[in-house]
């Protein structure tokens, strides 16, 4: 098979084609969709889901699932938000603005570690454990926050700035792309994606995750410490959800015990699966996942442009997931040529 053929037979090809076709379709009707400004809007819609998707992908590759990430996001964001609200009155000084970032990651890692230990120690199916901890962590978020929202004025300006400022902005009077910048949280999200790729593709433990997911019985026979890797995977997923938590505070400027992170797990799982990660473990790439996230971002950004009311957004999201499932399945079986048959 030619190199091109191999490329087209990859799982990522189908999703890439979907993104291109979708953008062309929207761009033909509303040319402003294909502008840099719109690209920035799309990118700003994705970082939370992308960070969460990296963790979820690892968990899925190891043949588990983590339904608690939305609650972990909410809990860790709430802990950081409370620190910011609390610090002046309690310590008499302001904690540095960045403390929330390591704190959220740490809190998320602890909660994820708890998930992993439950799954590993008691040999429980992850879907049930994380269903349980999802409701447990959400309840804890209400309890620690006393069901009160962290309002805008408590989140440090620098944290909020992460989603509006950038290290580099194209000067305003530059002939092309004047004033264009990519905000920090988008850079962070892509940084996480690159690190995840390096980890999964080029380290021993990363490869072991695939081995466990492909054949959980054979993995320990080949000397893989399944317990350690499993707990690690859940811990990473938790830590990334924690990072997504502080990014939520940055992006939206508030933390609410009931809204923050609610439904996040469904969005993330949808993106990951659209990106071609198999729910049966052992299969999935960072590139595919990133593309899956971007496709959801494109759809979300295109709807208001096309004049589709916000109330239809969820329905279209659902339809996109189903169509992506269909296309992914066809591509997996017959390569991209299989699409011809679908269209005919």
């Amino acid at each position, binding site marked *: 098979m030619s190199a091109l053929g191999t490329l087209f037979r990859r799982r990522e090809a189908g999703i890439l084609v979907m993104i291109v076709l979708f953008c062309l379709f929207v761009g033909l009707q509303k040319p402003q969709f294909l502008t840099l400004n719109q690209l920035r809007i799309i990118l700003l819609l994705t970082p939370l889901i992308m960070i969460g998707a990296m963790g979820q992908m690892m968990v899925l590759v190891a043949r588990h699932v983590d339904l608690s990430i939305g609650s972990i996001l909410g809990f860790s964001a709430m802990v950081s938000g409370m620190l910011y609200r609390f610090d002046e009155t309690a310590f008499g000084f302001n904690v540095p603005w960045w403390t929330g970032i390591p704190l959220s990651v740490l809190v998320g890692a602890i909660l994820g570690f708890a998930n992993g230990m439950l799954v590993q120690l008691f040999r429980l199916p992850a879907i049930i454990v994380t*269903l349980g901890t999802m409701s447990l962590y959400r309840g804890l978020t209400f309890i620690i926050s006393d069901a009160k929202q962290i309002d805008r004025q408590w989140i440090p300006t620098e944290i909020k700035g992460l989603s509006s400022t950038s290290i580099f902005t194209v000067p305003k009077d530059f002939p092309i792309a004047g004033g264009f910048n990519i905000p920090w949280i988008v850079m962070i999200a892509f940084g996480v994606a690159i690190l995840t790729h390096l980890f999964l593709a080029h380290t021993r433990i990363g490869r072991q995750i695939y081995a466990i997911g492909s054949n959980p019985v054979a993995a320990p026979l080949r000397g893989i410490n399944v317990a350690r890797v499993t707990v690690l995977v859940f811990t990473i997923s938790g830590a990334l959800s924690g990072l997504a938590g502080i990014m939520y505070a940055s992006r939206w400027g508030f933390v609410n015990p009931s809204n923050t992170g609610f439904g996040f797990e469904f969005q993330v799982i949808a993106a990951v699966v659209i990106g071609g990660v198999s729910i049966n473990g052992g299969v999935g790439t960072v590139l595919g996942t990133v593309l899956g996230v971007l496709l959801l971002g494109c759809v979300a950004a295109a709807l208001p442009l096309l004049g589709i009311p916000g109330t239809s957004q969820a329905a279209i999201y659902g339809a996109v997931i189903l169509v992506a499932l269909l296309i992914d399945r066809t591509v997996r079986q017959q390569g991209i040529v299989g699409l011809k048959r679908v269209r005919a």
Partner: protein
Amino acid sequence: MTAADARSTPSTMRDAAPARPRWQVLLIRPETMTFILLVLGVIAGSLLSPFFLDIEYILSSFTLYAEFSIVALVLTMVIIAGEIDLSPAANMALSACVFAWLQQAGLPIPLAIVVGLCSGLLMGALNAYFVIGLQLPSIIVTIGTLTLYRGLAQVIAGDKSIRVPDWFIGIDKIMIAGIPLPVVIFAILAVILGLVLGGTIYGRQIYQIGTNEVAARHAGIRSARIKLSLFLLIGLVAAAAGIMTASRLGSVRYDLGLGGELQMVLMAMLGGTYIFGGRGTILGTFLAAWLLVIVSTGMIVANVLPATQLCVLGVLLIVSIIATNFIYSRTQR
């Protein structure tokens, strides 16, 4: 109800392991842990507050959970067959919206109900097409359709709520022998489904599909047909539950039953149903529904923060499955 569970113990093996004592057989039944938790819940509740043991109060609070419980019964069968359906709560919302919108547009109510139920069937059929026809994993498919159905409900109803006529409101106020109608429906459906699952060939085939689908197909079981029937059934029942909710609340919004899929799965899991299929009973889910009601009303009576309920439910789920697994593996030696 499931006599075959007891029969499958190795008491008939040739090398004559001694017959397992009866208490052990009872102990490893999936719903035993639920029953124990239920008893503990009742005891704890009555210690917390003297008003707790008011049976009327418990029955009337059950009506708040009755719709989810009814769907959870069917969901149990779907899970035993090795599939899962996360879309019924969204299905409830969409069918209720279809029903409410049609009756507002002037269609007579009985006709609107029929159309609502049909839309539920259709949603079940769509799930079945993706899962059975295209062989896609049901958990992913139903995450997609749950978004789709909820979204369509939002398209129909917008952000407003649709009222239903006054005479249609109040299914939970209708009493039959002192028991609210939704609870009666739940109990009757539990008995019927329990008999079907435990006492018919069809029911036993569901267990076989969940235990090993390939083997079941080789044994001549039409697994696709049986799964199709289950998806259609859960679609229909979810639609009925949605319309019941409309009658209880008096108006329909797109967020009717939001988050209900997790409660339904929680009920099935608490009832000892094994998430990967092949194990579980209707009795377990029946008891688990009561357990949920006892726990949440007990906590309301004891003036505990509603959020604490979430924690307790999560912990309950994990503890009950750890205990069931532990007992099960002990007795398997």
